[in-house]
């Protein structure tokens, strides 16, 4: 279900992907997702929006190799994604996943050190990533001394040092206040431009999706399927000031038109199964 003028090389692909959670004893299995077809083009910024519980996070975890699909296939850079997270995919989660027992610096260095990178390289990459995320002054601080937005930056820095070519963001700003979210949006755009990585952002905020993305997939209530894919046609150089453009309102309007009914549906059975 990609757009008709899908140019560019396919970076990751989901084909007929479904996910059905086996029900607990005496309960119906939960059909959480799909079937879903999706082609991510190399270097694009793609957002997925949808009502809560529609399987957005499941979609992301399947793409990351954190969950296996019930049916369908996933490929990343031409290779099938199976039970493991492929090299080159970085994930930032909604929950605060910074490690409280490590300093900001050690948190950022965590992945590279476990991979056995030489200390000089670790040092260079970490300093670079911390500077990029505006964390250099907090290198020796512990996460408990930082705000939620700063901790999320720590998690982004930890992912960044591994130089991912596909960055998956699972509602990374969901727990932050509205102003911080706008600013974090700018950070993510900056990150996207500098790394030239492909970005997939899961969000429930239509304005966030409209402001950041090249394309936005609107998902239906559970079982989640793509109902519409909107192209924003923003320039690559953009930031949060885009929210005052007239076409910004048109995009969010079109998304809401699609999602309104679905959100009402999902209210009816919210909390009835895994998100």
């Amino acid at each position, binding site marked *: 279900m990609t757009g008709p003028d899908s140019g560019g090389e396919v970076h990751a692909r989901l084909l007929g992907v479904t996910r059905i959670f086996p029900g607990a004893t005496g309960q119906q299995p939960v059909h959480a997702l799909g079937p879903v077809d999706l082609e991510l083009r190399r270097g694009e910024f793609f957002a997925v929006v949808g009502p809560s519980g529609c399987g957005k996070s499941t979609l992301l975890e399947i793409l990351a190799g954190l969950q296996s699909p019930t049916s369908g296939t996933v490929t990343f850079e031409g290779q099938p994604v199976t039970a493991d*997270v492929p090299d080159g995919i970085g994930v930032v989660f909604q929950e605060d*996943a910074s490690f409280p027992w490590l300093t900001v610096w050690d948190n950022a260095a965590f992945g590279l050190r476990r991979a056995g990178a030489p200390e000089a390289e670790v040092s260079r990459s970490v300093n670079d990533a911390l500077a990029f995320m505006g964390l250099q002054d907090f290198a020796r601080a512990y996460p*408990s001394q930082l705000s939620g937005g700063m901790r999320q930056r720590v998690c982004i820095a930890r992912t960044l040092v591994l130089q991912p070519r596909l960055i998956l963001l699972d509602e990374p700003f969901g727990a932050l206040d509205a102003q911080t979210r706008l600013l974090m949006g700018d950070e993510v755009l900056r990150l996207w431009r500098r790394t030239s990585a492909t970005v997939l952002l899961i969000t429930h905020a239509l304005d966030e999706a409209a402001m950041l993305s090249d394309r936005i997939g609107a998902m239906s209530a559970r079982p989640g399927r793509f109902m519409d894919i909107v192209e924003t046609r923003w320039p690559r150089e953009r930031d949060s000031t885009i929210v005052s453009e007239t076409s910004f309102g048109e995009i969010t309007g079109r998304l809401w038109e699609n999602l309104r009914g679905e959100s009402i549906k999902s209210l009816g059975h919210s909390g009835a199964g895994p998100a």
Partner: protein
Amino acid sequence: MIATQRVTDSLIIVAILLAVWQGLNLMVGDTALPGPAATLAYLAHLVPSARFAENALATLAAFTYALVIAYGLGLAIGVWLGAHHLSGAVGEPLLVALYSIPKITLYPVILLIFGLGISGKVAFGALHGILPVALLTMSAIRNIPPVYLKVARTLHLSKWQTIFAVFFPATLPEVVAGLRIGFTVTLLGVLLAEMFASKRGLGFLIINAMSLAQSEEMLTVAIMLFVFAVLANSLLLWMEHRLHRRN
């Protein structure tokens, strides 16, 4: 600054305790409760004696064995119940029930199984200590945020790296809290065992002094135990706070 404040606070508490002690002494008389001065004088006489050393060593030996067993078994049970869902579901209510009953009611059973010697004391002390260590270790493992496992997988950690670099530090503060509580109740268990059925150890000294109406000796031994327990507890608490400050 904070350190001096703490020392001052502790000194104030000690002063208040001494004042209350002296006041009680004046109320009930020397036979029931000797005053601080008389007790300290007796302490200077008892502590260097061979009799005290012998009994203190007996308690220390029993306590050390009991603590090693309590920590070893407690951690093993805690890890098993925390990591294995079904075992945890079955084991937790059993542990909680055991934790809440007064263990002294089981002492006759322990005596019959292990006898009057050191093994009975060790078993009774360990029985006290295993439960909090196991319960808090289990809860520490269950409280690991699931997202840590996802992060470990996305950062390509091996199974052992995940255990040692993520799960171990994530559970450490709560596990240390369990070890601290386990320390205190193991000591309690050993002393109780010595009081009820033993001819050696500090618990025996206390109960023996009581039956001979030697209240100075009784109080002196109690104070030595008090000081030991407070020092050990403070050390473990300090470790715990250091770990928690980061969380």
